[in-house]
């Protein structure tokens, strides 16, 4: 595999590196040539990201996975803006795996971490601007005119004399030109698409008519469907398998033991599932046979009590002598991602390579893994990215992709591996459980003077297999949301204790460490405010003097929610503000609590500062979506263990927020000229503490353990 050297200059590397918060853009090469030769021959390839047909239809080729976050609309918008394209003629196409589509933030082709717009904001605009310059040059050539006398508008190059040529008419000529080395990007004030509402998603029609193809919708000739009986206890192994009854099920073709478990391969899902149900397996449950949620809680709590590696230290927490001390322990459970589309992958291992069809967030890593599993070169692994029926981080994990490939290799046939909902819920890669112990101190006047936090949780960095704990022993994801505590405490101390109960496979879950840590921190800040006898909003504000963007989001949310104004009887407010993934999000929840303790969330008002926006409509929907995701987990979400086995299995016991519980949601965007932040995740963390704080306001009962409806 040949790759081009990075073209970023040394100076640029260090310069961009210095501005850490905006996300790094390293090694972006604007490819002049493209390897997407299989595409329609008549269409002119302007660059790897863009094709223009003779009829002026513009196809943007997107290497990022569409999982609902709107990236298949946002990325084309970035290109279309600088290209001055006619949006009604823009289509999007999913790219295969190719160097040209490496995520600038990850250095590998993958989608996650709310990086899409942050990483592609400049590269995609440059691609659009380069294409525009080439189209102008082609027009100038045709007219034997000066390029400086040409402008562009809605898919046309227009000469000052009034002559016009459509992009389609110019595409073939333009594609033969050398891309410009330097391009000038528009001043944001000139934007006609970016930051403006009203641009429709490109995937809506397909998704409203049943035509959108997800991983599960792939059918190949001769394909077998596989369902795996996984060990009921993590780390367990099958010691004996009786598959006589399974093989008697009509449609069952093969039973295969693989490291993941016992696989039943059949003509379709139903036969495979019946076949699996008929398996008689004796399991050796291994070391986790006695794993229980009580034991896990105890281990984490003891870890938090003992403390560990120092993550941050300011002032002198030992010497501080507060007049009033507040202490609390918070706990959050393991969580399953529970994407609507159960996990799956279709793989076909042939002599000369592997082809897979999957809704995956990590094409790049999958290519590397599958080349090893199948014993072929990475270039012989073809990945067809389908629409993702939800991702939330779960589809970053390689387990279904590996399973399908191994089974295809063994059977010699195309295999679609399908996780039942139960397999999906019990399929690990969970958001880790976590316990944090806080200590806060106030001086005699109620001013905050001390803050300590001891976090105990499993390490996602180690579990990811592609990162490792840094030398200081502090897992970045374990402490994010607490270590970066924005409040101005003169004495602050944070420790991290790595605990791995059962060595369970933990993973990235929408907003990752913030998903629990922001609940912990923003609830505890509320406790401190209460102890100080201060209003929770004002207390936060007073401690955010050095954090203008936290403060800005907080103030906008409070203003829009009319913080301080009376609400109907029984309805109370809670507030929280969180920075994550390059964006600031504050939320105010309005909650009432029934006599039996059941909370109803009536309204959530969110204010988000995500820098410049690409598509404000999508931003608002993503924040709302993230609120629902976070609220669902806050109210119901928990994966628990008894005798080593996960107790939840499907939506009846791993509950989802439904239409009748959906609050009103209002999202306001802080106007900004700053670099864009992430948007898929930043709405998730603040909702749990905002709701829990509102419940405290309503009842005086402090929620210190999630879920709220335990």
């Amino acid at each position, binding site marked *: 595999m040949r790759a081009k050297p990075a073209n970023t200059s040394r100076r640029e590397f260090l310069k961009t590196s210095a501005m850490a918060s905006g996300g790094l853009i390293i090694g972006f090469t604007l490819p002049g040539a493209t390897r997407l030769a299989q595409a329609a021959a008549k269409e002119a390839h302007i660059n790897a990201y863009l094709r223009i047909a003779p009829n002026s239809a513009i196809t943007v080729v997107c290497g990022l996975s569409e999982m609902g976050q709107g990236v298949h609309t946002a990325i084309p918008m970035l290109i279309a803006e600088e290209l001055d394209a006619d949006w009604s003629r823009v289509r999007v196409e999913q790219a295969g795996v190719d160097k040209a589509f490496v995520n600038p933030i990850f250095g590998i082709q993958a989608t996650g971490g709310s990086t899409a717009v942050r990483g592609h904001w400049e590269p995609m605009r440059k691609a659009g601007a380069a294409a525009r310059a080439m189209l102008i040059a082609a027009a100038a050539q045709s007219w034997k005119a000066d390029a400086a006398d040409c402008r562009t508008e809605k898919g046309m190059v227009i000469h000052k004399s009034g002559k016009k040529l459509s992009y389609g008419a110019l595409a073939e000529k333009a594609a033969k030109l050398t891309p410009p080395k330097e391009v000038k990007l528009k001043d944001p004030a000139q934007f006609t698409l970016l930051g403006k509402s009203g641009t429709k998603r490109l995937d809506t029609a397909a998704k409203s008519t049943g035509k959108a193809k997800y991983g599960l919708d792939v059918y190949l000739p001769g394909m077998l469907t596989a369902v795996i009986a996984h060990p009921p206890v993590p780390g367990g192994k099958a010691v004996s398998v009786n598959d006589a009854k399974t093989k008697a099920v009509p449609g069952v073709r093969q039973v295969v033991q*693989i*490291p*993941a478990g016992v696989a039943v391969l059949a003509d379709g899902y139903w036969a495979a599932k019946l076949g699996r149900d008929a398996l008689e397996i004796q399991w050796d449950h291994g070391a986790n046979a006695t794993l229980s949620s009580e034991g896990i809680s105890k281990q984490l709590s003891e870890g938090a009590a003992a403390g560990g590696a120092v993550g941050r230290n300011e002032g002198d927490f030992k010497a501080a002598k507060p007049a009033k001390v507040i202490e609390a322990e918070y706990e959050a459970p393991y969580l399953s991602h529970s994407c609507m589309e159960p996990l799956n992958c279709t793989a076909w291992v042939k002599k000369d390579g592997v082809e897979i069809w999957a809704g995956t967030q990590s094409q790049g890593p999958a290519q*590397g*893994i599958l080349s*090893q*599993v*199948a*014993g072929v070169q990475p270039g012989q692994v073809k990945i067809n990215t389908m629409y993702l029926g939800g991702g939330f981080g779960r589809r970053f994990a390689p387990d279904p992709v*590996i*399973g399908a*490939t*191994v089974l295809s*290799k063994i059977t010699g046939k195309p295999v679609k591996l399908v996780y039942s909902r139960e397999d999906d819920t019990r399929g690990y890669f969970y958001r880790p459980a976590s316990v944090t112990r806080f200590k806060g101190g106030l001086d005699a006047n109620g001013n905050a003077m001390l803050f300590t936090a001891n976090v105990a949780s499993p390490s996602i960095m180690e579990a990811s*297999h*592609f990162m*490792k704990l840094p*030398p200081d022993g502090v897992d970045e994801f374990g402490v994010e949301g607490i270590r970066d505590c924005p409040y101005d405490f003169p004495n602050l101390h944070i420790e991290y204790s790595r605990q791995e109960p059962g060595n369970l496979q933990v993973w990235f879950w929408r907003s990752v460490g913030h998903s629990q840590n922001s609940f912990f921190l923003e609830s505890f800040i509320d406790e401190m405010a209460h102890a100080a006898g201060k209003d929770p909003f004002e207390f936060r504000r007073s401690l955010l003097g050095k954090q203008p963007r936290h403060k800005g989001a907080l103030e906008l949310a409070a203003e829009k929610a009319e913080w301080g104004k009376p609400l109907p009887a029984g309805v109370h407010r809670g507030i929280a503000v969180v920075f994550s993934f390059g964006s600031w999000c504050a939320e105010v929840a309005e909650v009432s609590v029934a006599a039996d303790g059941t909370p109803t969330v009536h309204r959530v008002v969110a204010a988000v500062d995500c820098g410049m926006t690409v598509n404000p409509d999508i931003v608002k929907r993503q924040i709302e979506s993230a609120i629902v995701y976070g609220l669902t987990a806050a109210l119901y979400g928990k994966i628990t263990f008894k005798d080593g086995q996960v107790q939840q299995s499907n939506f009846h016991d791993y509950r989802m927020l439904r239409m009748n519980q959906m609050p009103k949601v209002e999202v306001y965007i802080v106007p900004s000229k700053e670099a864009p932040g992430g948007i898929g995740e930043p709405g998730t963390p603040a909702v749990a503490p905002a709701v829990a704080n509102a419940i405290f306001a309503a009842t005086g009962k402090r929620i210190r353990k999630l879920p709220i409806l335990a």
Partner: protein
Amino acid sequence: MTARIQVPQRARRGDAVEVRIVIQHPMETGFRYDSLGRRTPRNVIHTLVCRYGGVEVFRAEMGAGIAANPFLRFFLRARDSGDVECRWVDSENVSGVASSRLSVAA
């Protein structure tokens, strides 16, 4: 773990003496999968410490970005005759040692 350490036998006090060491170790990245889809766990020599006459003179913290069978060449300043001793430990807590005597003339 087999290793080979090379240090000159003699040196004059004050000389910068070259130490070369190669250790047989896969420096397993943790990114490799076998044909059944099992990941080979990461196993790297993460720390190597060189002591000269019992005093630490060099330390390397390494990861999977160092090639298999790690090779290091570095220097130490000759003081008194003594052992040059390298000790290392990998992710599975397997440690190794290699040493060589250095005689120093004034």
